[in-house]
Every structure is written in C-alpha cells, then in structure tokens.
C-alpha cells in the first residue's frame, strides 16, 4: 500500500509539472500583456513599455520566463507585477479570507443536498420530488450573479442589514455582539449564493444515485430481513450510494474556488477568487500563474485524498 501511495504521489508530481508548463504557456499566449494594461494612457510612451517589459523579463524567451517564475516561486521572491508585493503571503492572506466562505458553503452544500436528494429518491414521483426537481433545475438555470443581486436586494430591504464586504466599514469600535452579528450577516449571504449551484447539482446526483441503489437486490434482501424503512435506506442503501461522492468531495475545494471568482466579485469579498479576477484584469502574471498552479495542486491533492478514502469506505477496493 505504501508503495502504491508513493507511486501515485510521484505520478501526480509529474502531472503537476506538466500542468505548470501548460498554465505558463497558456497565460502568456492569451492576448494582452502587463505592459499594455492601459494603452490609452497618454503618459504611456513606447520607452515606458520597453522599460516595463525589461523589468518583468517579458522579452526573454518563454522557457526562460518559466524558469524565472519557478525560481522565484520557490525562493519566495515572486512579486506581483501590480504592486511589487510578495505573491505567496498575498495569496495566503486572501485564501484565509475566503476560508470561512468555503467552509460555510461546503457545510451548506453537503448538509442540504443529502437529505433533499435522499428524500426525493425515496418518494419518487411525489409532489416533494417534483417540486425539488423543479427548484433544482431553476437554480441551475438562473445565473448566480443574477440570483445574488435579487437576494441582496431582498435581504437589504427586508432585514436592513448590509451584506457587501466582509464587515461593515467603520464597525471596528462597535460592541463584540454587534460585530459578530455583522460578520455573520456578511458571511451568510455570499456563502448561500456560493452554495446554491452546488446544492442544486449535488442533490440531483444524490437522488439518482439513491434511486439506483434502492433498486438493487441487496436492498430487497434487507427488507426481506424485516428491517424498518429507515435502516434499509440509511444503513443499507445510503452506505452504497455514498461511494461515488467520495470522488466529488475531493473536487469540492477547486470547484468552490472557481465559484468564488464570481461571488466574491459581487459581494466585494476580499478573497482568493476576487484576487485572481483582479489579477487577470491587471495581467498580473505572477499572481495569475501562482493561483492557477495552486488550484491544480489542490485538485491533485483532493483526488489523491479521494483515492485513499475510497479504499477506506469501499471494501472491494484495495490500494495496490
């Protein structure tokens, strides 16, 4: 098993190197470059552009630029083009800002999807099943940003609480109670919006997975033993239906990061999604590259974790 894990890790490392090549090449191939962020600025002269290009090594061949990026990344000397700040602390700080959002969204997604999906599967064809199906497809179809604006309007009007940003500006000196409630309100709405699509999609997966398992022979066996409906569904069926979700759980974080790009922009949340969005607009290569590479690392780590978890929860799978 140890050997398997080692081989698996090495494969992932090789994959990561390939991904870093691709990411670097893609970002440089994309139109627009750091020196031309503001081409209409009259104070931007040709020699300024040349100066910027030289400073950021943009005239070097691609492979040299790649080597420089990797070198600086590992030295910890990688600096943002935009403000000259070190990239890694910057990303880390933004990631910590996003973390509460990710944790809340994950909790919402997994705690809502499962009961909803299981219930819909058990009572297939019922009014409950039909309405959750309708709502799920509605939530998948309505764009997240549109729904977010509707919800912001509603929350602000109905409850009179601000929801933009991480907390209300100037509330630092308010009471602890006020600040906690303020933080909570600021956290709840973006978390919900970040979770909406996840809930809609995951609950559909849970439903179809559960339906498939409920039709299996071993579920009939469990019923023939005289077990009550709850034991049949939550012990015999659910345990089997859960297996594919181990894979999905490993991919959860990268998906949330990509979802956060839009949601953090809407809610002015200073998190990692907004950081990458701003970095793209500013052609801030070091930040864009590093965030993308980190997303790749998280994806690979997540699937690695899934592989291990699979062997834990499914006795038919052995790691070797």
């Amino acid at each position, binding site marked *: 098993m140890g050997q398997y894990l080692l081989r698996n890790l090495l494969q992932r490392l090789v994959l990561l190197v390939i991904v870093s090549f691709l990411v670097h090449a893609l970002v440089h191939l994309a139109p627009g470059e750091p020196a031309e962020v503001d081409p209409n600025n009259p104070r931007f002269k040709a020699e300024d552009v040349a100066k910027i290009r030289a400073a950021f090594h943009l005239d070097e061949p691609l492979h040299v630029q790649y080597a420089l990026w990797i070198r600086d990344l590992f030295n910890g000397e990688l600096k943002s083009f935009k403000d000259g700040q070190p990239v890694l602390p910057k990303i880390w700080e933004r990631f910590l800002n996003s973390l509460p959002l990710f944790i809340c969204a994950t909790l919402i997604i997994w705690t809502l999807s499962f009961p909803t999906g299981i219930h819909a599967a058990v009572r297939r064809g019922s009014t409950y099943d039909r309405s959750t199906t309708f709502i799920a497809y509605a939530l998948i179809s309505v764009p997240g940003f549109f729904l977010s604006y509707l919800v912001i309007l509603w929350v602000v009007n109905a409850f009179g609480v601000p929801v933009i940003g991480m907390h209300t500006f100037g509330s630092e000196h308010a009471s602890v109670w006020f600040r906690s409630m303020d933080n909570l309100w600021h956290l709840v709405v973006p978390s919900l919006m970040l979770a909406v699509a996840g809930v809609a999609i995951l609950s559909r997966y849970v439903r179809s997975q559960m339906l498939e398992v409920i039709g*299996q*022979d*071993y579920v*009939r*066996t*469990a*019923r*023939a*033993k*005289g*077990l*009550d409906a709850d034991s049949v569904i939550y012990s*015999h069926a659910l*345990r*089997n239906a859960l*297996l594919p979700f181990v894979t999905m759980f490993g991919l959860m974080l990268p998906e949330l990061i990509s979802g956060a790009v839009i949601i953090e922009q809407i809610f002015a949340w200073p998190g990692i999604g907004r950081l990458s969005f701003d970095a793209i607009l500013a052609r801030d290569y070091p930040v864009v590259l590093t965030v993308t590479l980190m997303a790749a690392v998280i994806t690979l780590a997540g699937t690695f974790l899934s592989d291990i978890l699979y062997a834990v*929860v*499914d*006795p*038919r799978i052995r790691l070797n």
Partner: protein
Amino acid sequence: MIPTTARTLSDDMSKRVLSLERLHVSFFTDAGELAVVRDVSLSVSAGETLALVGESGCGKSVTALATMGLLDHPGRIVAGDITLGDDVISGFSEPQMRKVRGARIGMIFQEPMTSLNPVFTIGRQLAEVLRLHRGHDDRAARLASLALLERVRIPAALERLRQYPHELSGGMKQRIMIAMAIACEPQLLIADEPTTALDVTIQAQILELLDELQKDLGMAVILITHNLGVVAQYAQRVAVMYAGEIVEQAPVTELFADPRHPYTQALLQSLPGTVDPGRQLNVIQGTVPTPREFPAGCRFATRCGEVLSRCASDVPPASRHGGNHVFSCWQRMESTS
C-alpha cells in the same frame, strides 16, 4: 365439477403453514390496472415443499413478494387472503409485517452475487437479523452466526464473518443467504429460483442443503423454479403458473404421470428427454402475453393447441381430478366429466 380453493386441497389442515386464497395482485400504472396475478390459491404445510413453476414473467416472483408484503409501488394486493399459521398476514400493517419478514418467513433470491450488501461484512449482515428478531447482543449474535455458518456447511466460519461478499464464491454467498433466511428458524422459506445463477454442481449442493435444513427445521418451503428436474427431485407438490394464474396443481408424481392442463402437457413435452437426440425439441409456440394482452378468458387460449370457442372469453373454473389434483381448463373438464 367442484369449485375448489386451497382450503379443500391440503391433506392436513393442522399442519398448514401458509395459504393463499384467491389472491389477486395488480399493478396500477398510468396505462391502467394490470392484473398480473389472478385468483391464485395455494397452500403449503410444515415439512412440505411446494414447487411453483412456470415461464419467466408468469407471476411466480410477484406471488412470492406479495406473500412477504414486499410488493413495490405501483403493485398492490387487490383481493384475497394470505394466511400464515393462524394470522391473516395480508391484513397486517407494515410494522406487523416487519415482525413476520425474516422471522416467520425467510426468503432467498435468485442472484446471490448481488443479494448481499457489498459494503458490510458477512458477520454484520448475519448478526443484523438475529439482533432484530431475537434481540441478541453482539456476543450472542456472533455465536449464533457462527453456528448458522456451520449449519449451512461453510468452512472456516470464524474467518468468513470478517469477510465481505466479494471475497466469496457464488455458491458460498447463496449459503450465506440461506443462513440469513433460516437464522430465526422461520415457519416458511421462500426460495425464488435459488440455483438459477449457479453452476450445475453447486446447484445440487445448494438444493441438498435446503432439503436437509427443511427436514431439520420442519419448515414449509416454496420453491420457485423453472427447472422441472429440480421439481421432480425435491418437491412434494407442484403448482404450475401461467400468465399470473395457477393452471394446475397436483402432487409431483401425479403431475408428471398424468398432466391435465394443455400448458402443463406442453411444458413436459418440451423437456429435452422427450425426443430422440438430433431431433428438434418440442416447443410451445409464441411467448407469454404481457399483462396488457392477457385474454379475458383462459390466459393460455392464445397459445393452446386445443382451444375451444369459449376459452377466449370465459374463465375456466378449477376442476378436480382425483384427490389432490386441480386444474383449470374447459377442454379437459368436458372430456373428463
């Protein structure tokens, strides 16, 4: 002609374990009611094996599931009584039925490969029944499970308890299924094609095991099969089903020696032994009609070689031939009476 129900059929009423009386099961689909089981009456006594035979899709399994109270929506018993011992279980509520399933009626299925839960150990799946119906604690359940595994002749029982279904062979899994079904020493065991999915050599072993357990425990057994060889060897009585109805019911020797219903005759004719090697086997032309296409009268009318004009429209009543032999056929009834 005497209208006959199961009540008049059984030799020994006091030993009767299960009787179905005029059972009707329908599936209520968007296209309307499908009468998949019509007017089925049968009974089985302690220590007796009743074979339920017929082609695929003739309602054998539905009858069994109805007996277990396991019919899935949209299937439902629309008429008739199911009596287990002294209880009319067709009137039982779901919580009452749960105390029957696995305790008073055990059931084993056709596919041992998929009938055990892949993510639980054998030990856990066995112990579950014992904890549920016998109130055993972990230790007692474990000891009882070991005894059960030995009873169904599984070697290295202690090790098996820790294993998962995928680590066992098909025959072994079916033994586990049998162990689970007899764990609470049920009055009735329903074996729904227990050997169809197994190798021929394993089939014989499993059937021998069932036979032996039946003798030990004195259970009534309903053996659902389409293997007439198995019927001849292990059953005392046979009920032949066709398109949701029992067309003929008789003691085994009598049915094989003197089949009355044209369908039973055709079934026996189609056995490979009836023609010389190298010759084409006898077949029953056509296929079992789907429930939507069932004729209003005798359901075999569309494939019968001796069909009369009234067959298609009138349901033939059950008629008696000798002591325990019942069949439903206009043609035969008229030729005997």
